[in-house]
């Protein structure tokens, strides 16, 4: 039965991608249907799970023996526990909403059928990732979502920038994937297995050094998929993809897979404190990095991408804290899934009404023209900045508290970083809000000279936005109520109460102060004053942040140029040096090549002669040897 969760969207992908043009008219509804079916099955499992006690909720389903080789057993088998269940509901729920949204958003695209095929493929791979019961099968889902992401970022393939961004995303992810592969090799040599149950239950048998190595390799994988420093560079470019893709894959689900991986492997990280420290540092650095980049971007999607990076930084940081943080990491992941998907869909709605303009400096005053978009986007905005009572408030507050609870100097540093991050989040999100919906109109005609006529988007787009807005408002409170979310996950991720040196009230107050400072600073700069249509030169930091804090320049100079130079010289060397050396050796053997070339005169007879010659040599040699 668990297989059906994966099977339904997989069937959709296969039918839509192989089906041909006959399906152009109804294909997208088929995709929505199968995605919805997967969601319904997920809900049924969820209800069934609620009927059982906490320790009895894990389901297992073994389908077939996949790669049975002496000493190496991999199975196609699924495991559905509370952690997987949480993801299943998020993926299929948000996924189905975004399917419906895309029906409207992609209405005029001639390749809509293929788009929906890729979306279904993504769902199948993502579900495989969270349902696999072993790391090798997880790896299939892991690269599967990478493939879907590649196909969807590059969906408008005739745009060279989209094709380049897609390739970049796949490549950077492959670096992470190599990390995951090495982690699996390490598990294989250490435990003789890479299935969750045996490895995680006996993780403590292995030496700390081994576990640290495994942990760091898993972190490398997580950095690739979740766009964490130093493998974050692909996410901004990935905004080349259609906006529903950015919402589903590059905000709500796929990019959070790294958090899943670390939480799932908790038993390994718990026993490897050094690896945990690196996880926390990566999370902290990325949360500031993404936030700073998010402040400088004028492209609405890239600003949101910076924000995604930063929010996942929070989750990674929380996951690095161990049992005091896992549940909060996942909780923030889910609430973030709601409000960030909602924000992206809102951005898509704005672009839809503004001739696909993405530059916020050319927006302004849109709240009157797109009221539904304004309200839903606004609620998502309030949720992400952590406005008290909304989803983001509860989940982020918990992470900040847990960061302080890490203890010692580390705890103070991490706590301060998360608070600073909260302030910057409030700043850049207020900036987005102000530049888009407030102020005066700065609209510009598009490349063909069409003046924008902003209008509210069709029902198929606004309904998903409204649903996600509900999630953004209420999910956090619901999860926090009675500590229901923590209790739900506890059997899988374990939970310990962190002891923060600051009281919960003090942390909450500090968070609210940070929020007010961030909002106030942005409002002074972008709300009260007129926003220039052309970006000012900006400070050194702003200019660096616009270029992703110079990382792209580094990549270009070191990796692209260096790599090109390396391969060019190798191509030259292969033709001249290696080939030459071997040929030279051959030539010394009596100019054999020249003689053979002369034989190449096109007459069958001489070939026959040489064949006979060869055979004669052979027989002579045999005879000779016999005589010896």
């Amino acid at each position: 039965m668990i297989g059906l969760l994966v099977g339904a969207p997989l069937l959709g992908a296969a039918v839509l991608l192989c089906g041909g043009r006959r399906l152009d008219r109804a294909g997208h509804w088929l995709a929505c249907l199968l995605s919805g079916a997967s969601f319904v099955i997920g809900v049924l499992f969820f209800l069934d799970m609620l009927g059982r006690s906490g320790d009895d909720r894990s389901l297992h389903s073994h389908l077939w023996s996949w790669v049975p080789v002496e000493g190496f057993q991999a199975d196609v088998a699924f495991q559905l526990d509370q952690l997987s269940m949480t993801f299943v509901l998020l993926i299929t729920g948000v996924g189905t909403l975004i399917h419906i949204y895309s029906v409207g958003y992609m209405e005029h695209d001639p390749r809509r059928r293929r788009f929906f095929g890729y979306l279904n493929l993504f769902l199948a791979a993502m579900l495989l990732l969270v349902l696999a019961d072993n790391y090798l099968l997880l790896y299939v889902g892991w690269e599967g979502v990478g493939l879907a992401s590649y196909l969807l970022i590059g969906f408008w393939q005739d745009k060279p920038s989209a094709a380049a961004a897609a390739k970049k995303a796949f490549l950077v992810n492959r670096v992470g994937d190599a990390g995951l592969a090495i982690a699996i090799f390490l598990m294989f040599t250490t435990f003789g297995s890479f299935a969750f149950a045996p490895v995680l239950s006996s993780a403590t048998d292995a030496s700390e050094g081994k576990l640290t190595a495994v942990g760091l390799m898993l972190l490398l994988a997580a950095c690739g998929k979740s766009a964490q420093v130093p493998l974050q560079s692909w996410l901004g470019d990935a905004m080349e993809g259609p906006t529903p893709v950015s919402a589903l894959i590059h905000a709500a689900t796929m990019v959070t897979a790294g958090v899943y991986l670390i939480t799932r492997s908790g038993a390994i990280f718990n026993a490897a404190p050094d690896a945990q420290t690196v996880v926390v540092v990566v999370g902290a650095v990325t949360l500031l990095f993404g936030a700073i980049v998010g402040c400088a971007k004028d492209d609405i999607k890239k600003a949101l991408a910076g924000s995604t990076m930063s929010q996942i930084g929070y989750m990674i940081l929380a996951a690095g804290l161990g049992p005091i943080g896992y549940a909060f990491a996942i909780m923030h992941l889910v609430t973030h899934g709601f409000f960030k998907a909602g924000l992206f869909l809102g951005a898509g709605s704005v672009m839809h009404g503004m001739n696909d303009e993405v530059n916020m400096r050319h927006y302004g005053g849109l709240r009157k023209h797109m009221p539904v978009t304004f309200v839903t986007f606004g609620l998502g905005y309030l949720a992400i900045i952590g406005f008290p009572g909304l989803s983001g408030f509860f989940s982020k507050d918990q992470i900040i508290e847990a960061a302080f609870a890490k203890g010692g100097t580390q705890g103070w540093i991490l706590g301060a970083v998360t608070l600073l991050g909260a302030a910057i989040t409030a700043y850049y999100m207020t900036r987005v809000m102000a530049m888009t919906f407030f102020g005066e109109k700065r609209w510009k005609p598009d490349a063909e000279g069409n003046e924008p006529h902003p209008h509210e988007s069709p029902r198929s787009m606004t309904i998903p936005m409204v649903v996600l807005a509900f999630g953004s408002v209420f999910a956090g409170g619901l999860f926090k109520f009675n500590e229901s979310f923590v209790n739900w996950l506890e059997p899988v991720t374990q939970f310990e109460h962190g002891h923060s040196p600051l009281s919960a009230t003090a942390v909450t107050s500090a968070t609210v102060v940070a929020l007010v400072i961030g909002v106030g600073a942005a409002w002074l700069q972008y709300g009260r004053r007129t926003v220039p249509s052309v970006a000012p030169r900006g400070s050194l930091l702003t200019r660096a942040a616009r270029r992703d804090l110079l990382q792209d320049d580094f990549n270009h100079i070191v990796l692209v140029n260096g790599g090109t130079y390396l391969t060019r010289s190798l191509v030259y060397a292969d033709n001249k040096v290696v080939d030459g050396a071997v040929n030279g050796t051959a030539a010394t053997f009596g100019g054999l090549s020249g003689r053979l070339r002369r034989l190449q005169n096109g007459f069958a007879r001489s070939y026959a002669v040489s064949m006979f010659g060869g055979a004669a040599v052979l027989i002579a040699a045999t005879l000779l040897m016999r005589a010896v």
Partner: protein
Amino acid sequence: MSFPLLTVTALVPAVGAVATAAVPAAKRTAAKWLALLFSLATLVLAAVVLAGFDPGGDRYQMTESRAWIADFGVRYELGVDGIGAVMIALTALLIPFVIGAGWNDADADEDADGAAGSGAPGGGGPAAGGVKSRWRPTQGFFALILAVEAMVVISFAATDVFLFYIFFEAMLIPMYFLIGGFGDKAHAAGEEEGAKQRSYAAVKFLLYNLAGGLIMLAAVIGLYVASADQLGEGTFSLQQLTQARASGDFSLADNTERLLFLGFFLAFAVKAPLWPLHTWLPNAMGEATAPVAVLITAVVDKVGTFAMLRFCLGLFPGASQWATPVVIVLALISIIYGALLAVGQRDIKRLVAYASISHFGFIVLGIFAMTSQGQGGATLYMVFHGISTAALMLVAGFLISRRGSRLIADYGGVQKVAPVLAGTFLVGGLATLSLPGLAPFISEFLVLAGTFSRYPVAGIVATAGIILAALYVLLLYQRTMTGPVEKPEIRRMPDLKVRELAVVTPLIALLVVLGLFPKPLTQIVNPAVEHTMSDVQKKDPKPQHPVADHGWFDYKPAKHSGGDHE
């Protein structure tokens, strides 16, 4: 004596070659269908071999043994272990696709005057029909392909070293004509220069392989002398030699064994090909037509890696271990070097050739890692690389035939006008970069895991190869298939035709199915790998902290140490 199934499997394509060559000049379509028919009949026979192979049975099955040159102890001995059976199946599987893809490749030469290619096709005999005034390239092309198939099948089945050697060398002749005689219709450097480069590539192919073969011949003779010395009567029989070695009747001095090993290994390393003996492959694959390029890299070259497993490890286990460090380093260089060179190529077919060099590095690495996973993975790698490269290269061939150019820069935006072609090309590429879910992933992962468990550093270096693989495949796709359609030749480009789809669809289906259910193959290969492992007296490294059995899988290896199921 039971039915000589292996002989018949080799004989059918040989007869097919003669029959195809005998078809009159005017009836070239009939010749094509005849060739296809014979290749399909061979495929049926190979399927029978595979189905009839009993994984729990003897090491070599379907054995045949007849005296041949009694004076020299040469016997006509055939037999397959799991590895041989799988390789024969791969060969028989790919040939129909090679024929289907090359359906019209030889036609344009029809009216040209006698170029190369009219030589003696068929399994060593003179061409049926003798010397004719009118020359028939289509018939020749398909007859040569079938002749190669017959020889490759014998090579995979031969358990007599001398018998193997003869066919290992003899297949150079039809291959030489296939490379030199049939090329792409249009050549970037002009027709005359094209013919020149083609014949250069063919000669280079022949020279490299002949040189390797000659060295091997010396080693073959040396082996015979040594066996005559120690056993009283010289023999080339693999089984006899391994048995004698196991019982202690036959043991080589270290230096002798090493020299003989080198003689064999060099020949196989040229064919495989391993860095730095690889430079003939890009020339040959670049100049040959795409189906012939597939024949080279997916079928003929596999004889080299196969023979490393069967002959180098089987006959010279001590020397194999002695050479392991060097071979592993060469394999690693091949992996990284081949991939980097592929990134830098401007020619589609040469790019695939360098990618193949990288992949052969993986195969050799898996073989010499001397672990069950490494060698099992290497065997699967041979099969899966054959299928995936065939898919990629044949679609590349369809692309090239439309535009008349091999240069990557001459393309761009193809997916807009020919989405099916672009889609199949992408799937072939994804298989080449070992995307999980497709078959090559399984073999590559096994090779890497098997290598890592004994040589962690080598395992990590090789893993870097998967990143480069993504780079050369996706760069190729980006440059040829994406972007705006700017060139008028591309705007008019038709999508895949029915024949082309019929060629590529089953290959893609196989890549998917085998990626999900490789078990039928692993079952056959596993026991053979165990035998090879015991030949070299190696055991898998044990995990430091083995975990208890998971309890939920239904598979238990036949000879697992925990024999609670016996």
